[in-house]
Structures are given as C-alpha cells and as structure tokens.
C-alpha cells in the first residue's frame, strides 16, 4: 500500500503547431522554428499538479518530477513544467536520435532510479506523431497502462481511469505503479504565472547523460524524412453574400466535386 505517490511527468519540446516546417536534403529543417512544450504532455503536468493539490483524499502526492530526454532545447519544456508547479526536473541531455522504444528504455531507468509510482506522458508525441512512447515505457517497466486517458483518480493503491477507444470509451482500474498517457479533455492546463516562473528559477534541474542510463542504441534508423505538404487553394470569393454563396456552391460542386 502506497502512502504517498511520486509522479513522473515526461515532456518534449516540439515545434509550435503554427510553425511552418520544411524538409531539406532528406531531413527536417528546424532552423528558425519556435518550440513549445508538447501540448499532449502538458495535460500530464497539469494532472500531476491537480492530484497533488488534493483531488482525492487517498492520494497524497510526495513529489512531481518533470523528466525530459532530448536535446538542450528540451530544457525549456522542463522550465515551463517547473513554472507550472512541478517540484524539480531531470534532463537527460542528448542529441542522439532515438526511436520511442530506445527512449523508453532510458526513461524506464530514470523511473526506477526515482522510485516513481505513476508516470504521465502525452498520448502521442507531436514531433513525429508517434503514439508509442507511453506504451513502450509501460512495457519496459512491466507496468499496466491506461492510454488516451480523459479521467483519472487515485483510489487506495490503484487508479481509476477513463480512456478513449476507437468506438467510445472504457472505465479502467489498474494498480500502481502505472503509466497513464494523457490527451485533450483530461483537464485544462494552467498558465505558468509570473511569480511561479520566478520561483522556478530556484528549483533543481538536474542534468544527466545518456551513458548514465546505459545509452541504448536506436533500434530503427531514420534514413530520409519528408513532409507532406498540400498547398491551399487560397481562393477568396468576393462580392455580395448571395452571389458569393452561389459562386462558392458552384466551386464546391464543379471544381472540388464535393457537392453534387
């Protein structure tokens, strides 16, 4: 029976959803792109903080630790989590390109070292739209998984969750320790306030190396990257509303062929 729960929240720093990304010479060119904390992961940070702020009486949260595995810029996502209210952060800093399974091995090692009871991570990672990381971490640790979670409570020494399936949703019960992947609908992440941004400066952000966690090699190698781009037509229909609507209907029927 766990008296108090230690939560790990896994983060990435990814291109802003509004950023225009190009591929050049078979690799994505991130020059000049603005990065933000992965929105999917942010739900996890928020949920950890809500659990600590006393969701259910049974859950006393010992600590919320933000963890990131990736290049230097990921530090900013960790700072954001600290400013939102996480207690401290661990950054396994590497420029190595690791696939989700290799990443999961490192993150599982961090979780073991930290003695984590609950791991929160985004349902999918916005950088390559992989939805594998949470599942791979659970697999690595041999822990139960609730993916695409929209409701979460800690009850006794287990969790009750609701998660999305293709056709609807399911209510789950799972024992701790466990992995939960988060998504839209779970909560509304808070803004890091100015005072908390300033307090975050004094919080611990530990830098670790990949070697300290066994430096697993990537199991898959990305040979070439391309980005699917489809130019918008960018057609503006001007004029009086009735006239413009008629023209729009004609275009949808004759040119786009989506109306008959």
């Amino acid at each position, binding site marked *: 029976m766990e008296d108090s729960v230690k939560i790990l929240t896994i983060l990435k720093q990814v291109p802003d959803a509004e950023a225009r990304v190009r591929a050049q010479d078979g690799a994505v060119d991130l020059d000049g792109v603005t990065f*933000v904390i992965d929105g999917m992961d942010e739900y996890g940070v928020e949920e950890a903080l809500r659990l600590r702020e006393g969701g259910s009486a049974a859950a006393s949260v010992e600590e919320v630790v933000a963890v990131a595995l990736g290049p230097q810029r990921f*530090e*900013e996502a960790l*700072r*954001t989590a600290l*400013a939102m209210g996480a207690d401290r952060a661990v950054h396994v800093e590497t420029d190595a390109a690791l696939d989700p399974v290799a990443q999961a091995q490192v993150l599982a090692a961090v979780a073991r070292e930290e003695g984590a009871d609950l791991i929160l991570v985004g349902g999918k990672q916005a950088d390559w739209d992989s939805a594998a990381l949470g599942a791979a971490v659970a697999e690595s640790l041999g822990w139960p998984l609730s993916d695409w979670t929209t409701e979460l409570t800690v009850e006794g020494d287990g969790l009750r969750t609701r998660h999305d399936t293709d056709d609807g949703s399911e209510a789950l019960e799972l024992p701790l320790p466990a992995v939960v992947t988060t998504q839209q609908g779970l909560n509304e992440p808070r*803004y*890091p*306030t*100015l*005072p*908390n*941004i*300033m307090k*975050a*400066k004094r919080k611990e952000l530990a830098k670790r190396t990949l070697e300290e966690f066994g430096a697993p090699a990537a199991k898959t190698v990305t040979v070439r990257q391309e980005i699917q781009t489809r130019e918008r037509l*960018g*057609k*503006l229909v001007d004029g009086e509303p009735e006239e413009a609507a008629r023209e729009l209907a004609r275009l949808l029927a004759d040119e786009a062929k989506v109306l008959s």
Partner: protein
Amino acid sequence: MIDFELTEEQRQFQSLARQFAREVIKPVAAEHDREESYPEAVVRRGHELGLLNTIVPESVGGLGLGSLDEAIIGEELGYGCMGIYTIFMASELGITPLLLAGSPEQQERFLAPLLSGPKLAAFALSEPDNGSDAGAMKTRAVFDGDDVVLNGTKMWISNGDRAEFTVVFATFDPAQRHRGTLAVVVEKGRQGFSARKLHGKLGQRASPTAELVFENVRVPRANVLGEPGDGFAIAMRTLDRTRIPVAAGSVGVARRALDEALGYASQRHAFGKPIAQFQAIQFKLAEMKIGIETARWQTYHAAWLADRGEPHGEAAAIAKAYASDMAFRSADEALNVHGGYGYVNEYPVEKLMRDVKLNQIYEGTNEIQRLVIARGLLKRLLE
C-alpha cells in the same frame, strides 16, 4: 560587453505574455473598442497571472521586475491590444513615482495593497490648459497643519476613474514654477475628489481616461513624495522610465500590423497571383520589418540602461518617438495592403492605426521627445 540574449526567465515571461495576449486579450479587443467598455475580466486574469503591477518591489511583496522585463511583456500585450495594454502600463506609471521617490513606509502603505486584487494606480500631471508645459500647472496645494489641501483639475488621466490611488502633481508656489511643485498620493474616495470618464476617443477605447476634479481635497502631508519642490523632477524622472513601455507597446502594435499584412497579402489575389508577390507590397512589408527590429533594439537598450541605473532619458525619448512613429506608419501601410478591407472594422488594422496614434501623444508628445533629444545635443554648445 554586449549580450543580445534574453534570459531563460525572460523568455518565459515573453511566452506567458504572448499566450495571454493571444488567448485572453485578442478575442475581446474589438468588442471593448466598439463599446468603449472596461475589460474587467482581462484585468482580473492579468492580475491572477502576475502581469499587473509587476514593478512593485519585492520588499513589499511584489515581483520587482525591471525595465527590460517590462518591455518584453509590454510588446506582447501591445500586440494583443494597445488600449488594453494601456490599462496595465498606466498602472505601472502610477507606481513609478513611488519607486523613485517614495519612502519605504509610503511604498508599504500604497503599493502592498495593490497586490491583493486587480487594482490600479494612476498618474495625474496634465491639466485642461497645459500638457507639455507641465511647469505651468494650476492645481494648487496648500499646506494646512499636517494636511495638504488640493484644488484644481487634471485631464486625460488613464485609469483615473478606477485607480486605488493617483499620484497628483500640484503647485504650492506658482511663482517658483517647476521648483514650486510637489507630488502627492491621493487615495480613492477622498472627500472632494471626483473623476469623470471621458468619451469619444479615436482609439484605445478599452482604456478608461478621466478628468479628475479636486475640490478642497485634504490628504495627510505624509502622502507627499520626497520634499515639496521635488514634484516636477519626480514627474520627469518617472516619464524617462515609463516612455520605455510606450515604445515596447508600439513595437507590439507594429508587429501585429506586419502579421496582419502578411496574412492578407498571402491570401489576397490580384492579376492572377497573391499580392505578396508584388514588389510594391513586399517593400511595405520589408519597411515594417526594418522599423520593428530597430525600434525593439532601441527600446531594449533604453531599458537596459534604466536597469543598470544609468542615465536613460535620451535613449527612452528616442525609443518612444521612433517606435510610436514607426508603429503608426506600419499600421498605415498595413491598412494600405488591405485596401478597402483595411478601412472597415471587420479587419483589425484600422483599430491598430487608431490605437497607436495615442502612443505618439501620451507620456510626452513626440515633439517633446525631440526637444529632449535636441536639448541633450545642444546643452554644451549653448551654455
């Protein structure tokens, strides 16, 4: 030593302010402009996030942000809506005289209570008959025992009808001109004090502007900042600092104008291609970019000097005049890019132009800024 990099913390301030501008300010800006209404929910949220009254010192429980921090945040809020940003900015303007000349006791008494809610401060210098010529102020202060008694009228006072306190400048000896002035804190609700909200402004209509009337308003002498005689100097030192956020807000407006122009120019077609492909449009966009970058660095430079405690009056005057003139031109050019659509309020560019016009006027007209700059140039030559 030159370092153009923002600190990690400043980048976070920036991203918070940017998010706030995008999600909280921008969606309601047009409505408050149209209705000339006070954006109460925005100010409340701003307070919750710590974006209001940021320069209140740590010694009384505030965040104690510096001038550069304020400029970084100001640019983002100005991007969202200059009128709404003026509410935040004018409150910092009301706080600044207390930072410069308030005793620890006065800072504690007046600034600490501001932190408990979405509360505002104000600064009252201009009068119906004088603005740039502040030394000619007519509002009278008469000492009476332990009190100061005020009579007169102040004009164009941002936040004046809502402020918890207003720093009022008055003359106790008109014969001494500047040297016969004082700065005194007048709390909301003092007997004989009334505020009338002004209507019909061209722009920045979300920001409340008031006329303040003082009829035998009695405040304790302990509310006087510094010594009697310091009034004018306190006002000028305050404006030397607060012109920096005016410049920052202007940069925000110009950036918004550029973004709107870019968006429209890449969508709108003429002669078979997006108008962004015509040099006539490209030159306008490039000109805006030139202005934004140069104005931002001048603003940061002035803020940096202020934070180091170095003379910054001239740098702030350059930043304020240059940034606000540049922002007005940018809004004008963005409107040109939009053609007829720019002239109606369905698109946000006409509001940018109306709003930023005020940045050329308040906190010292741009003509006054040029006087400040020229005086510095000629000081030694003409002495």
